[in-house]
């Protein structure tokens, strides 16, 4: 069968299956289980309406539990077991308690990843939100503001790996006396005459060079959300502040910013979540070498390179534990904003 045709059939079966499910299950509820006729018609209608939401929710709940809840449970289980190859060649999983966690915490690479992640956690959301706010404010009143905004937003459309490749080229260093194709080294060598620097191997600062990539991507997101929030501020409160004698900086920091604080927090925490899961950029640019390891890449290395399922799962649990509270807080804030 031609792949395009197979794809089409899959779509038809999928969409048709969904339609069938909703139609048939509602028919069953209304016609068979609680028919809206007979002596209990009124009661039946009420009961059917109590059940109906669950009919609509069921597919989503089912998929979520299969693809989210079950993997979490399985990861917890794996993080407490160790794979043992027996003498006859078969493998079994033995329960080892917290041994994987103990092993992980004695691994300096893990602590390097932990420290770096915390570092990312402070720098990236702060810079992205600050630049986003700045861009939103500066582009608000100018005629070409929308063009500037589109340009700043564009990196959002690039995948993390793509962005990583772009920035790898920007940081690229060629041997001395050949022309430098990396912008940074081209400028550096051109201005100072020194030898080019392998930027991604400079200890500690290379973390910053990686973070800049994510800041570059996330600034657009922060800008768009904050720009909408800034526009939502009633113009008259700003005019009242002008009449009250506030200067432009005071208006921005004391009148505008407090009014969009809720949105700033939501943007900040949303970016925090992205940062905690950061993987692609580090994987594609340094793969955690030269002191740039982060948790997600550590997990990947343990799981798929070292093939240590126990420690890999344990590090996955650490990431989940870090993400969950921020996620809950973020959802709460977002809901509060919507009200």
């Amino acid at each position, binding site marked *: 069968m031609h792949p395009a045709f197979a794809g089409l059939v899959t779509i038809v079966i999928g969409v048709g299956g969904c339609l069938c499910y909703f139609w048939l299950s509602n028919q069953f509820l209304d016609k068979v289980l609680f028919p809206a006729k007979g002596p209990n018609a009124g009661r039946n209608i009420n009961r059917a309406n109590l059940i109906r939401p669950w009919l609509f929710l069921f597919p989503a709940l089912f998929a979520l539990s299969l693809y989210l809840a079950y993997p979490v449970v399985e990861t917890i289980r794996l993080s407490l077991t160790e794979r043992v190859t027996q003498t006859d060649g078969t493998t079994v999983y033995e329960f080892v308690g917290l041994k994987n966690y103990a092993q992980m915490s004695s691994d300096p690479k893990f602590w390097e990843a932990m420290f770096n992640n915390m570092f990312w956690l402070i720098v990236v959301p702060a810079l992205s939100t600050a630049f986003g706010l700045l861009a939103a404010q500066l582009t608000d009143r100018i005629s070409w503001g929308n063009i500037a905004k589109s340009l700043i937003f564009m990196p959002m459309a690039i995948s993390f790996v793509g962005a990583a490749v772009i920035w790898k080229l920007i940081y690229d260093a060629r041997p001395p006396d050949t022309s430098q194709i990396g912008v940074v080294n081209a400028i550096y060598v051109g201005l100072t005459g020194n030898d080019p620097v392998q930027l991604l191997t400079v200890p500690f600062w290379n973390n910053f060079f990686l973070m800049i990539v994510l800041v570059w991507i996330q600034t657009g997101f922060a800008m768009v959300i904050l720009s909408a929030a800034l526009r939502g501020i*009633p113009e*008259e*409160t700003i*005019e*009242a*502040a*002008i*009449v*009250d*004698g*506030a200067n432009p900086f*005071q208006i921005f920091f004391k*009148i505008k910013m*407090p*009014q969009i*604080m809720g949105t700033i927090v939501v943007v900040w925490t949303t970016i925090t979540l992205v940062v905690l899961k950061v993987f692609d950029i580090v994987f594609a640019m340094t793969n955690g070498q030269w002191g740039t390891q982060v948790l997600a890449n550590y997990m990947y290395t343990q799981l798929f390179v070292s093939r240590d399922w126990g420690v890999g799962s344990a590090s996955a649990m650490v990431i989940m534990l870090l993400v969950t509270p921020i996620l809950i807080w973020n959802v709460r804030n977002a809901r509060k904003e919507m009200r």
Partner: protein
Amino acid sequence: MTALTLTNVNKSFGEVHVLKDINIEVEEGEFVVFVGPSGCGKSTLLRVIAGLEDATSGEVHIGGDLVNNTPPSKRGIAMVFQSYALYPHLNVFKNMSLALKQEKQSKAVINERVAKASKMLNLEDYLERYPSELSGGQRQRVAIGRAIVREPKLFLFDEPLSNLDAALRMNTRLEIANLHDTLAASMIYVTHDQTEAMTLADKIVVLRDGRVEQIGSPMELYNNPVNQFVAGFLGSPAMNFMPAGFVSEGDPRTIGVRPEDLRLQDDGGLSATVQHVEHLGGDTNVIAEAKGTQITARLFGQHAINQGQTVTLGYAPERAYYFDKEGHRV
């Protein structure tokens, strides 16, 4: 001394000429109302006085000083906005004291002035509250309080009552009138509501299409309108206009008669078919049609008049106004 002098003020937004040669004087302690239909430029004029917009040409003097190039906060004005424009993240006290803080006033002065203003406006119990915790009327009072504490030379009100419901609007109108008496301050008040203009003003400025149509005391404008627009704008129900040809054959002018000057009169000469009757108890408004023109008569007391009935209306000739084709009074 005059509180405000506007000399040949013009304002254009690009091609659009919004204010045209405005000349107005406001005396110290006077309550002046700018009134006109929406889009007539009255709010723009207020914003030019406040300094939120620059005049394209002409001079703005406040308290004798030329303020064309003075920022709003240094003009000695305070403005009350239509939407109150309270700072949602500050409590009532901080909302009221922000301007004083900006002026670098001492804590003692700030506390004293806020205390005085909040007492005047019955806001003493709400100083710790945030704007979202206040009712519409309370927010309005905070907005007024924010203006009072600055002790400005000139108060500017931009349609301050339009967000309040009818009952509250009447109360607040009285409060503003009382405030004017207590503070003896010069006030400029913008509204599209002719009732507010008539009840509050010492002097009314009627604006249309960016031009001053007439300036004068409420009764002066009511009794002596210079043109058909002013005559029709002030008074409720509005003045009736009908071709003078109704009464004397061949007269090209327009006659204006106020609804309360019309009366039931058998030899009145205006025969009309009743379309609608509003029984208000104290008054009866009769809306009738005579030769294709709608006429409203406001009759004192209660009258048994029915829809579809034909009535004969008359008026004292000295109570009629005559306007030429361009709408000028003749």
